[in-house]
């Protein structure tokens, strides 16, 4: 009995170690499995979007600006599409339509979604040195569905990226993102 318990314990420990090593991954548009958390980079930002979410689409110009401004400063930005029905072709088409040139990932099994616990599109997750430091809206323009301000008064994602660019590791912050529910896609 004692032997068996010890064996089970060992097995569990091995499982845990294994799962710790197993970083969440997603597929790039060429079908390669990618683990987007590059600890060598100052920060990795995941922006969850879908091709048919009007709110994430309205953010396309701002998302591209984030890429253009923070990419050269060593920040890595990924668009993550959690809809299992999307294909590399549909995502490429969407990127062309909305003038987006940002690395895009397919997350059909919601590994990235679950890892950062994203709930809606669009929402942004910022990971610094393997640690989540931000999860929430890009900015606070939307107060609710159908309720958008004329302009955002808080640029929450930029605030975090600016802090990282200044060499800080900001404490974890959550903001309320408004958009299309990711849970429906599973």
């Amino acid at each position, binding site marked *: 009995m004692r032997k068996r318990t010890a064996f089970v314990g060992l097995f569990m420990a091995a499982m845990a170690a294994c799962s710790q090593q197993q970083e969440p991954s997603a597929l790039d548009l060429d079908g390669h499995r990618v683990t987007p958390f590059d600890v060598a980079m100052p920060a990795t930002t995941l922006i969850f979007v879908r091709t*048919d*979410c*009007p709110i994430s*689409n*309205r*953010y*396309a*110009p*701002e998302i591209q600006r984030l890429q253009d401004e923070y990419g050269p400063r060593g920040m890595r930005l990924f668009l993550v599409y959690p*809809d299992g*029905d999307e294909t590399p072709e549909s995502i490429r088409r969407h990127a062309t*339509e*909305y*003038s987006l040139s940002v690395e895009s990932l397919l997350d059909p099994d919601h590994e990235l979604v679950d890892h950062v616990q994203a709930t809606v599109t669009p929402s942004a997750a910022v990971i610094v040195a393997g640690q989540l430091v931000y999860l929430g809206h890009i900015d606070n323009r939307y*107060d*609710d*569905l*159908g*309720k*958008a*301000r*004329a*302009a955002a*008064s808080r640029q929450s994602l930029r605030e975090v990226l600016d802090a990282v660019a200044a060499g800080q590791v900001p404490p974890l912050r959550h903001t309320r993102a408004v958009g*299309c*529910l990711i*849970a*429906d*896609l599973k």
Partner: protein
Amino acid sequence: MKIVLTLLAAVFALLLSCSPSKPASPTYARDIAPILHRECVPCHRPGELAPFPLLTYDDARKRARQIVQVTGSGFMPPWKPEPGFGTFVGERRLSAGDIETLRRWAEAEAPLGDSTLVPEPPVFTDGWRLGEPDLVLGMPESYTVPAEGVDLFRNFLLAGVIDETRYIRAFQFRPGNPKVVHHAVIMIDQSGTARRRDALDAEPGFAGMSFGEAREPDGHFLGWTPGKAPAQSRDEMAWSLRPGSDLVVLLHMLPTGKPEPIQASLGLYFAAGPPARVPASIRLGRKDIDIAAGDDNYVLEDRYVLPVDVELLRIYPHMHYLGKSVQVYATKPDGSKQWLIRIDDWDFNWQDDYQYEESPRLPAGTEIYMRYVFDNSWANVFNPNIPPKAVTYGLRSADEMGDLILQVLPEDPKDLAPLLQDLHHQWLAQEIQGHQMLLRADPEDFENHHTIAMYHLQAGSADSADVHFERTLQLHPTYAEAHVNYAAALAARGRLAAGIDHLEQAIDSRPGFSKAHFNLGLALHAAGQRVKAGQHFEEAARLRPEMAAAIRRTVAGLRR
């Protein structure tokens, strides 16, 4: 112990199986598709404004929780009037039962059910839904809505030839790109203003929420919102479109994240002849809106007492982004109260004009009362000013309006003329109010004093007109037009000498002012100074040779 537990479990299982069975979860096939097809699919299908379709099981399954969220909050379907305060054509409302069914379906992980039971989605007629129009007018070139930014308000002239007066029994507006057009209002311009403004703007159309000279035709209101069926007048109530008129469409457009080209068109269906019945537009509201920054409960009230018996056909409440709630009711001469519309959560983006399912009959003496509330605080997400600032009446989207338009049909067609007369007086009062408001901002605006004087004159309040004429001329003593108008007002009340004095001042200010000479001629003639009068008539004719013949005919008439 183990036995006891097993027994307990068995008892529970038994109890559960005996209790009245829980209703089976709704399925897409049997319960959900009929709701979505009836209530959502008119807009949630390809080619319509809604951002995604809800035609198939997969469409619905991938939005199941979202559907529960938006139907539960009342965000969808978008329909602002409160139930029980007027019943309107084309109401988009889900019953509490439907909302509950959707919720239970999503909770049960959105089951399909028996796929053979899935009903066919409804078939929609794309294109012209009432058949080929008699005339199609369209934007001559497309306009591109930029990828991002605030809502856009732009007017476009619709090109097309109206060769003779036509009577329009129905129209269909086609936005060209429904993804971006949230609302359209079609107006008629006979002044040429729209053409001039269009020519001054480098891009197609011209910016702005409205422009003063555009009119709604004959008491009709030509509006379009997504999902609305083509508008048909009652057979006897067509509206007229005359040669030389420009149709102008004001589009409220929302950027979508990518550049969106748009080219709208309008299909018109002709009636055989002129309308047997002509409705009238009653406009309530105030132009002296002045909302302090931070005021979250600014109340605007107005009233109008009907001078004749009418049937109320349509109602259109209008505010901009600071609007919070709408209450309109009628108090009949017998004291009974009838709600006409109530909106507790005003949303500019979903404004509409509403046609009554059953037209309220309102007898003469009925008072129509409107009460609008505005929120100019931070709490109002739609506040266009960050931080909030004082807002007054105006046509730009950052200004405010508090209008209520009612389309009424006099029960007796003979009552149309007195109704229009009464409405003209009410309109003058509103205009005076609005211009008085502008005076508060600039008390020395002599043009404005002059305009107010002219409105008072039309309204028959000569004494009030005098005050503003005096102030106009005090601020601008050589304002020849004002001297001439004031003189006419004085002469009409027999104050000839004072009138002559002002006409002479007008000529001193502008010696080449033909109208001043002509009017002075008339005044001098009335005062018995025939020779001097003759000299001024001659001068008027000399200054405007094209009018000489008409002037001489008038003079000959006077002499007879």
